[in-house]
């Protein structure tokens, strides 16, 4: 079977982010990047499915040149090869991203396409669903378990408030994967070495149609409450906080 995993490169978690001079995106200079966390779970799920059913895992990524490093890391974890749709710097809207991914993957005849349920940067949470629509494939989202039996798919979808649901659908299909459905592996030394020789097909992104949404401005959020912040050494701050909890908030 052919498994395709769509991944995104995002700034390293807990990076200190600054707004760019343009005011419409973050300043990308001097940032470090990593795989979007839900996509890491999608990759792991694809690797486990390949171990069970055989076949091939192809990494698919739309991003600027720097995304090559994240792609290489995915290959080091065990993916067989990759397609890198090279874009210019800055954020693409979801529809544009999904169109690029769809064009690049069409000729692959994938059996199952997996991706994370949302990105840690834009957070629209829809690339997988849009990709499925563009490819004419069925899909399901927020998936906690994937079973393949007799050429069909049965997945466990997370609902709200602790509810779940199994859903069956034919292959090929697209699934968006929820974090925590498996245990992530680390790349081995051997894996890192092997990754250097694995194929990355680079496709230059064509300039897309007019964006359906435009970011006009980004800014620090207004605080809904003004928190009282206690500073100083831990002991002093803790004592001040407890004082407030006892006499102002009256919760102790």
């Amino acid at each position: 079977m052919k498994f395709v995993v769509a991944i995104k490169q995002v700034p390293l978690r807990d990076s200190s982010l600054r707004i760019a001079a343009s005011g419409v995106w973050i300043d990308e200079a001097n940032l470090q990047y990593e795989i979007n966390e839900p996509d890491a779970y999608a990759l792991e799920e694809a690797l486990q499915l390949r171990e069970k059913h055989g076949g091939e895992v192809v990494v698919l990524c739309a991003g600027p040149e720097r995304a090559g490093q994240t792609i290489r890391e995915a290959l080091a974890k065990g993916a067989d090869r990759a397609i890198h749709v090279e874009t210019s710097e800055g954020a693409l809207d979801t529809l544009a991203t999904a169109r690029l991914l769809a064009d690049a993957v069409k000729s692959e005849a994938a059996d199952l396409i997996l991706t994370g349920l949302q990105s840690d940067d834009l957070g629209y949470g829809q690339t997988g669903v849009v990709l499925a629509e563009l490819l004419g494939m069925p899909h399901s989202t927020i998936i906690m378990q994937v079973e393949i039996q007799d050429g069909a798919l049965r997945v466990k979808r997370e609902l709200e408030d602790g509810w779940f649901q199994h859903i069956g659908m034919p292959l090929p299909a697209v699934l968006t994967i929820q974090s925590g459905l498996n245990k992530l592996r680390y790349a081995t030394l051997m894996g890192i070495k092997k990754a250097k020789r694995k194929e990355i097909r680079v496709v230059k992104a064509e300039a897309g149609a007019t964006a359906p949404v435009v970011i006009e401005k980004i800014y620090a959020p207004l605080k809904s409450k003004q928190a009282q912040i206690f500073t100083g050494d831990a002991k002093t701050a803790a004592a001040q906080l407890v004082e407030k909890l006892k006499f102002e908030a009256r919760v102790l």
Partner: protein
Amino acid sequence: MSVLVIVEVGHRMAGEALAAGQQFASAMGAPVQAVTVDAEYTADGFTATYEAHVRKTKPKLVVLAHTYQTRDWAPKLATRFGTMLISDVIAARFEGWPVFVRQLFQGKFNADVRAAGDGPHFVSVQAGAFPPVAADAVETLSLAAAEIRQRPEKPFRESARAVDLTAAPLIVSVGRGIKEQSNIAVAEALAQALGAELAASRPICDAGWLPMERQVGSSGQTVAPKLYVAVGISGAIQHLVGMKGSKTIVAINQDPNAPIFEVADYGIVGDLFEVVPALVDAVRKAKG
């Protein structure tokens, strides 16, 4: 020109979607229509039904609640109209064209997003962003004929919840900042000193450091205790929606810009491994 609100009847956000739709409609000087589908949910079935309705009624704006169900099919609908769902919106302005406010980078920034073109525009609103109105006057659409590829089975719950966090008056909740499983004990000591329940953000439960039933957030429990102490939790929106109704919120975090401080009443910016033990001592002292 009208505003169409798609209502998930029975969902706690139904009234919020309607409230947002009414607010946007009044700013646009447009009438509102609220609709729902009376059928078992499938992404294919709902997309086909609402596509037909949108083509027929030609709304300028389609408003939904940002629920798990919306996330499963509304992007597909927007794609059929050559546009995308502006998801998880917290506010809107109308200056000749609609500008929607949504969060980026897990709540670290807000973005003003303009919907280009003439519409229909598709928007889903975040839980808690629009005070709900009564979800009445909702018209029911019948399911359109379409090829439905998903075969849903009956929803189920994993097991009875052994821990009901919703009843706890005091909660100490732990996040990624705790770094290692063995460090959970640091937060546990604070919970014990306060007489609080121990809870966690999703990544902690994903890692198996605490059971899933102790998870607070959109995929876990929604709590509103008297006191919620967030230890090493940055405050991604998925967590905030599960706890921002708490009466008093304390945040302990190394990053002064962490979104958790936006909803906190009190905060300590610092190393939790120094702050929390100091807090345990101070609480013990205060309780005598």
